[in-house]
């Protein structure tokens, strides 16, 4: 990522639920209790435990976890729908816990859009009115907000449906309206709380691709919550894996698949296809380890994925591919390296 400006900086954030959460927090800071001890001593549930994430400009950051892992709590801490018990959340450099009610509303209205799993469309309003609702509550005049909403609906392909009511739309279309509503206010950051989880697989895949394309085209940053690792890999530039309120690992899909932090992550990534994830630079050996001639080999870039490499090998009939960066030889990928890569072995590169 060239532009590494951090839009959301969330540091060591905790959320403890329960009547004695204050005491529990005291014990966490004072005595360094963990979540098990907190549950035992205070009967408080730790929703999010010591979570730190940084979301950079233009990045899609996925938080993946099963139900009860605290991912929905974590995303609500980012726009203070839930107050953090401990720790700091900065949005565009400003601590949102320190904001007064008016500033917080302003920040939510202008900088952070949100899309919900349940869509949360207002049933008595038509699609256009729903999409314009965010601007309406900001007091934007009707002409102006309708223009913005029409533009946003056009982006999600719903121009012909503006005067329909939510109940007349399919689930996938409703979620497009939810996305359009978030885009209408033109925020830099969009929080996506399992937006596609309730949709059927085909529509879901389609919306995943559209969402990624749209977010990149518009230069938005997004935090995307999902319980589906495939979805996280398709959509996310970086992925954080959560379990029991703790972020176990953060990294690109390739980093997580190649170097799972623990057995839990390893089990998760076991079934994931490596073909598009693993790149030439992860599996190549150094040129010195290659005995054969280099000149006759087909060439590829370090970012070419295994799928493309297999294609090249089968087409050319060569035994290996030379990896080049800026016209300079940086390594060799052999058939053996490719096979190891397909299996996802981290030590596929033999050095």
């Amino acid at each position, binding site marked *: 990522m060239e532009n590494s400006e951090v839009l959301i900086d969330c540091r060591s954030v905790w959320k403890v639920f329960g009547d004695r959460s204050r005491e529990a927090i005291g014990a966490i800071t004072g005595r360094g209790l963990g979540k098990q001890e907190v549950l035992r001593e205070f009967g408080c549930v730790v929703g999010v435990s010591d979570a730190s994430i940084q979301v950079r400009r233009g990045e899609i950051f996925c938080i993946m976890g099963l139900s009860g892992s605290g991912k929905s709590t974590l995303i609500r801490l980012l*726009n203070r*729908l839930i107050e953090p018990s401990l720790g700091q959340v900065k949005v565009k450099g400003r601590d949102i816990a320190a904001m007064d009610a008016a500033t*917080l*509303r*302003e*920040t*939510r*209205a*202008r900088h*952070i*859009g*949100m899309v*919900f799993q*349940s869509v*949360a469309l*207002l*049933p*008595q309003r038509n699609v256009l009115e729903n999409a314009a*609702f*965010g601007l*309406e*509550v*900001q007091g934007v005049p009707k002409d102006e907000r309708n223009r913005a909403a029409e533009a946003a609906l056009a982006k999600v392909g719903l121009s012909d449906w503006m005067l329909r009511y939510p*109940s007349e739309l399919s689930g996938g279309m409703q979620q497009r309206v939810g996305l359009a*509503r978030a885009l209408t*206010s033109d925020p830099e950051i969009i*929080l996506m709380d399992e937006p596609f989880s309730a949709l059927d697989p085909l529509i879901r895949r389609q919306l995943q691709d559209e969402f990624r394309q749209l977010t990149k085209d518009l230069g938005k940053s997004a935090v995307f919550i999902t319980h589906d690792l495939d979805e996280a890999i398709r959509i996310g530039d970086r992925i954080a894996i959560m379990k029991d309120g703790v972020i176990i690992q953060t990294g690109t899909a390739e980093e997580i698949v190649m170097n799972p932090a623990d057995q839990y992550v390893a089990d998760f990534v076991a079934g994931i296809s490596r073909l598009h994830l693993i790149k030439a630079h992860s599996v190549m050996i150094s040129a010195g380890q290659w005995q054969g001639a280099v000149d006759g080999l087909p060439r590829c870039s370090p970012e070419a994925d295994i799928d493309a490499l297999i294609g090249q090998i089968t087409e050319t009939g060569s035994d290996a591919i030379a990896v080049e960066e800026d016209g300079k030889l940086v390594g060799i990928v052999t058939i053996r390296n490719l096979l190891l890569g397909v299996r996802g072995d981290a030590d596929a590169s033999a050095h």
Partner: protein
Amino acid sequence: MTVNPGAFLAPVVDWLNANFHGFFAVVTQVIEAVLGAIEGALLVLPPWALIALVAVAAFFAAGLRVAVLIAVAIAFPLGILAARRPRVEAALRPVLDVMQTVPPWVYLIPAVMIFSLGKVPAIIATIVYGIPPMLRLTTLAFRGVPKDLKELGEAIGAKPGTILWKIEFPAATPTLLVGLNQCILLSLAMVVLAGLVGAGGLGAEVTRGLTRMEMGLGLRAGLAIVAIALLLDRLSRGALDRKRKGA
């Protein structure tokens, strides 16, 4: 040991009567003036068969409408408050239970003592009787607003008032209309009682039938009340169905 609440309440009512007579007289005059105006306006209608029915309904419903309006004005905000704060609801619940179970005649006694005979005590008793269903259903309606809609309001930076009027109120409307419907019908049940304290209208007819032991008179007035009840019920239910269809 005997408990004698009257021993405490009677002096209070007497004292109120002695010291605030002027104020209560003004309240009486204001309410009667409003009622008189509504009645007058409604009675101008031409007396054709159907219109006559509506006019008769309206004749007596003028008082009812004022009572329902005041009951709603009290019950609605309290109901919202109770929906937000469980403690308020816990405090209100026994009061509402008492209001609904104490025989309505009992409200009439102090009301008549303070406002003297006529429409005003009847209206006050009707208000007391109409508040509990409206309040309870208001609380229920606002509790039933989907959590994600409220969360949406917060997430887009809406002010609390905006969330209340643009998100919660429309979502709560169907249940609120049920509350209004109940409030109207229960108030109607007070009509007969109102006749006892000289509020006039159909209640007076029923009372007259009862005191003179004239079955026909009482029955006729009773059926008229039923007709009005049906009319009002259908009207408010119609509004409800339209709302549902729109949603």
